[in-house]
C-alpha cells in the first residue's frame, strides 16, 4: 500500500462528536415547524410578557414593595390569596370525594355527573359571575336562605369563596381521578388478607399514594382562584378593603393610567403563579422518586 501523500494536512477527528441541537431525522419539516412555533411564541407570548417584566423591573423591588404595602393593595392581595387558599382546600376535599365516587361506585347517571364536573371549564366566567351573584344575593334563591341563618354571601368574602370553589372544583377532581382509577385492587386485597379493617386500609394504603395528586389539584385550584376575575366581580360587590380582589385592582389602576401600579400587582401575581408551578413540579419529582410514578 502506498503511503499517504503529503499534499494536504491531515486533520485528526475530534474524540467527542459535536453536540447537536437536533437529532438527525428523516422526517421533514422541522425547520418550518420549529421556526413558526418560535415566531408565534415570541410574538404572542414572550414579547408581551417581557414588556411586563421590563416595566416591573423599572419599578425595582422597592417600587413593587411600595405598591404591595399600600393598604388597599395589601387588603386586595390578602383577600385574593386568603380566600383562594380556603376555597382550594374545600375544592380539594370535595373534589377528592367526587373523584372517588365517580371512579369507584356505579350509580345511575354517573356519566352525566362526570360530565357536569367540567361545567366551570366550559362556562364563560361572566355568565358564571352573574349567575352566582343572582343566586346568592340577599333576595336570591340561596342567598335568602343563608340570610335567614345570618350568613351574608353576596358582597362579602363569602361570595368570593363560593365563586372560587366553583372554578377550582374541576381541577381538584380531574387531577386525582385518573390515579384513583389506576389503584390496583390487589393492594387493598393484600391489606385485607393481612388483617386490616376497611378504614385502616383506606387511610394507610389507598390514600398515601394519592397525596401528590391531591396536592397538585390543590395548587392548581389555588392558582386559578387567585387569578380569576369574571366569576368573582359580580358576586363580590368589590368593596375596597372588604371584598376587592387583586385582579380588579389591576383593572382599576389601568383605568387610572397607573401602569406602574398595575404592573407591580401583576408581577406579584405572576410571581405566585410561578412559585405554584414550581411547587407542583417539585411535588411530582418527589413523587416520582418515592413511588416510582407520578
Amino acid at each position, binding site marked *: 500500500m502506498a503511503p499517504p501523500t503529503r499534499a494536504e494536512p491531515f486533520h485528526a477527528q475530534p474524540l467527542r462528536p459535536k453536540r447537536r441541537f437536533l437529532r438527525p431525522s428523516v422526517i421533514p419539516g422541522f425547520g418550518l415547524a420549529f421556526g413558526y412555533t418560535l415566531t408565534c411564541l415570541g410574538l404572542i407570548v414572550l414579547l408581551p410578557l417581557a414588556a411586563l417584566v421590563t416595566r416591573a423591573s423599572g419599578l425595582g423591588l422597592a417600587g413593587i414593595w411600595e405598591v404591595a404595602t399600600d393598604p388597599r393593595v395589601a387588603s386586595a392581595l390578602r383577600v385574593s390569596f386568603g380566600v383562594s387558599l380556603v376555597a382550594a382546600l374545600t375544592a380539594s376535599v370535595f373534589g377528592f370525594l367526587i373523584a372517588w365516587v365517580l371512579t369507584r361506585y356505579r350509580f345511575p347517571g354517573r356519566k352525566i355527573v362526570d360530565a357536569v364536573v367540567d361545567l366551570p371549564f366550559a362556562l364563560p366566567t361572566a355568565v358564571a359571575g352573574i349567575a352566582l351573584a343572582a343566586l346568592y344575593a340577599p333576595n336570591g334563591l340561596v342567598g335568602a336562605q343563608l340570610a335567614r341563618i345570618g350568613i351574608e354571601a353576596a358582597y362579602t368574602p363569602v361570595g368570593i369563596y363560593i365563586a372560587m370553589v366553583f372554578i377550582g372544583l374541576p381541577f381538584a377532581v380531574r387531577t386525582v381521578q385518573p390515579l384513583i382509577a389506576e389503584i390496583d385492587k390487589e393492594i387493598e*386485597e*393484600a391489606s385485607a*388478607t393481612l*388483617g386490616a379493617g376497611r378504614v385502616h386500609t383506606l387511610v394507610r394504603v389507598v390514600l398515601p*399514594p394519592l397525596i401528590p395528586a391531591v396536592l397538585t389539584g390543590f395548587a392548581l385550584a389555588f392558582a386559578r382562584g387567585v387569578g380569576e376575575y369574571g366569576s368573582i366581580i359580580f358576586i363580590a360587590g368589590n368593596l375596597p378593603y372588604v371584598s376587592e380582589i387583586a385582579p380588579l385592582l389591576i383593572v382599576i389602576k389601568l383605568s387610572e393610567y397607573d401602569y406602574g401600579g398595575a404592573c407591580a400587582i401583576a408581577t406579584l401575581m405572576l410571581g405566585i403563579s410561578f412559585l405554584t408551578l414550581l411547587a407542583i413540579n417539585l411535588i411530582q419529582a418527589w413523587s416520582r422518586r418515592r413511588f416510582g410514578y407520578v
Partner: protein
Amino acid sequence: MPGATERMGGSTAIRVEALSKTFDTAAVLHDFSLDVRAGELLALLGPSGSGKTTLLRIIAGLDFPDAGRIVFGAEDATRLPVQQRAVGFVFQHYALFKHMSVAENIAYGLNARKRSERPAKAEIRRRVGDLLDLIKLSGFADRYPSQLSGGQRQRIALARALAVEPRVLLLDEPFGALDAQVRKDLRRWLREIHDRTGQTTIFVTHDQDEALELSDRVAVLDKGRLEQVGTPDEVQEAPVSATVLKFLGDTIEVEAIAQGGEVRVDGRLTPVRAPEGLVGPVKLYARPWQLQFAEGDQAHLQGVVRSSYRTQGRQRIEVDRPEGRTVVVEAADTNRFAAGSPVGLRIIGGHVFPN
C-alpha cells in the same frame, strides 16, 4: 416457627367441601372438594380457566362461593371475613405497598392489629429482622419496592405474608411475572423456606414442572373439577384420566385395541398393560421418551421425519404420521435424522384410557 410441630402429621388443616361458584353463566367451580394436610406444600395445577385461582381466592375470603363450605381445622370459616381468616396471600404481581419501605411492608399486618393484640414495637422490629434474614434480604429494611427487582419484591411479599403467622400460606402463580432463571431460583428457595418453617402452603400454577418439582402433593384441576390429587410420582405414574396425563406433559396419542389386559397397535403387541375390564378401542398415550426408533416388525407406527432440533442435550424429532398427525419423539443426541426420511417408531411405555 409456626407449624413445625404439625409437619406432615396427616391431620387436615383445611377442608374444602362441595364448593361451587358461577361467574355470569359459566360454572367456574363444580362441587369441588379437597383436603389440605397440615404442613404440606400443595400445588393446584391446571390450565387457565380451570378454576384454581378462584379456589385459592375463596379459601382466602377474597371471593365467595355460591355453595359449599370451607373448614379451617374444626372451625367453619365460610362466612368468616377475610381479615379474620389469618391467611397469608401472595399475589402474582406482589401487591407491595409502594409508598412504604420494605420493613413497613413486612410489619404491616402486625401494625394493623388492634392495640390490645399488637406486639411491642421492639418485638415487631425483631420479627421483621428475622424474616428479612429468612428471605436473605437483611439490610434491605429501609429500601422501597421501586428500588428492588421482581424476585426481591416477591420474596418481600412472602415475608409480609409470613409475618402474621398465618394458618396457611396461599400463593397465586407467585413466579408468573418473573424471568425464567429467577423463577428457577425462587422455586428452589420456596421449597427451602417451606422445609424450614413447615408452613401449610397452597400454591397455584399452570406450569407442571413447577408443580411436580416443588410440591408434596399435586391437585390437578380442569374446568372447575378436581381431576386427581396425589404425590408428583402418583399423578405421573398412575394418572386417573387422559386429561391429567395430557396436562402433565407432551403426549403422543395413538389408536389401539385392548383385550385381556393386552394392548395392540396396528395388530402389534405393545408392552403397555390395559387395566382389567377395559376392552375394545382405546387411546394409548405415550411420552416422547416412550417411543423408540425401530425397523420393520418391531415398529408400531410409521412416519416421515419433518424436522429435528436439539435442546438440553437431547434431540427432539418431529415425525409426520400418515393420518396427518405430527408426533414429537425424543432421542439421544447422537442420532441424526434427515428431513423426509421414513422412520419406524416403537412404543415402549404409556397409558391407555377409554375413547
